[in-house]
């Protein structure tokens, strides 16, 4: 299997996970339309189980076509579907702003991928489309991690990484997920030094996102990012596999 194909498989898997983030539109009954485009255009046709099943089928078909043939039109269709459902999701739950922003890397990365593809054709470098597109998405990945660290430092300050603060985060999430890892999620926040190390490690890894701009550093950063996301999943139950798969796909 070629590296570009393997990379596309990981990127498509990241986009498939991103779709789970917007699956809430499947059981929405009416949209409050608080702002933006949805106050002008009725998008309720795209909500509910049946509409979501149809959209999911189109999305899956577009991703499959993107993997198999690097069909840019299919990737564009997938982006449009993700943008539509993400917009409805934001309109439905404006209070979730700041939480569901995990869509930023898969959605923003795909947008960059498509923009660079068009730019490549425009500059007469059609033979370099795959490389240019991946390079552009890598820029977005570097920015997404840097912004995640900047958010914590600007809004929470250095105290965000303190053991007591991280312990409260972890403890608050303990009952939100499956019972299988509940003992670990209750044990971990009782150890403030461990929680502090976890918080500092998170800031260091996210804050080092800039290194993803350098191709040689990408595999090492992807390994660190995988460790971060798997740790967050194990200890807090928060799933960011879309980030994880995207960064691995881009590092390949």
């Amino acid at each position: 299997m070629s590296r570009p194909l393997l990379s596309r498989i990981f990127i498509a898997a990241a986009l498939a996970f991103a779709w789970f983030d917007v699956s809430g539109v499947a059981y929405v009954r009416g949209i409050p339309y608080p702002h933006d485009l949805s106050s002008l255009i009725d998008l309720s046709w795209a909500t509910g189980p049946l509409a979501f099943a149809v959209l999911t089928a189109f999305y899956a078909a577009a991703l499959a076509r993107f993997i198999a043939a690097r069909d840019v039109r299919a990737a564009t269709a997938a982006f449009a579907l993700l943008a539509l459902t993400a917009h409805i999701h934001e309109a439905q739950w404006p209070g979730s702003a700041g939480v569901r922003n995990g869509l930023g890397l898969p959605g923003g990365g795909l947008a960059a991928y498509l923009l660079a593809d068009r730019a490549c054709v425009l500059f007469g470098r059609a033979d370099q489309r795959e490389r240019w597109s991946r390079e552009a998405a890598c820029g977005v990945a570097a920015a997404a991690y840097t912004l995640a660290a900047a958010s914590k430092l600007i809004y929470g300050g250095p105290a965000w990484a303190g053991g007591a603060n991280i312990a409260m985060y972890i403890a608050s999430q303990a009952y939100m997920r499956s019972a299988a890892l509940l003992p670990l999620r209750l044990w971990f926040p009782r150890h403030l030094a461990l929680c502090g190390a976890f918080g500092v490690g998170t800031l260091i890894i996210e804050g080092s996102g800039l290194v993803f701009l350098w191709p040689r550093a990408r595999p090492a950063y992807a390994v660190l990012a995988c460790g971060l996301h798997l740790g967050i999943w194990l200890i807090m139950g928060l799933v960011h596999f879309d980030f994880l798969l995207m960064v691995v796909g881009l590092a390949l």
Partner: protein
Amino acid sequence: MPPRWLAAVFFVGYLAAATVPKGGILFARFPIFFPDLTPDVLAMPAFLVDGRPASVRRCRDFVGIPASAVVRSVPDMDAWHRFMEQRQWIAAHQAAPGSAPGPARCQVGFWIVSRDASGRPEGRFQASAEGTARCR
């Protein structure tokens, strides 16, 4: 080979898209995730099946658990969307009138976390409604 500056251009472009317009744009939001410091007491919505935490989306045909039981009446971590999602799901999956109750015993409520004297978190579950459902 792609030009060396290409990734840097998209890096700067994404930072600008996320920070220059207020709140950013779709797929480029800032702040990203929840960066605030946690309060001393907070609560998250919790859902138990037969006494064990579970995702509410595992269950349907709720009896005895109205959507109104999912209320945000205690301090929390601004996880408004979690309350709304749980409430939406329960509202959309109530049992048909007159149907038999499901086999699973369910509780909906809060997982309330506070700090003890040493700063360590302590949690307790507080139920707001109990009933039955069919769960997978």
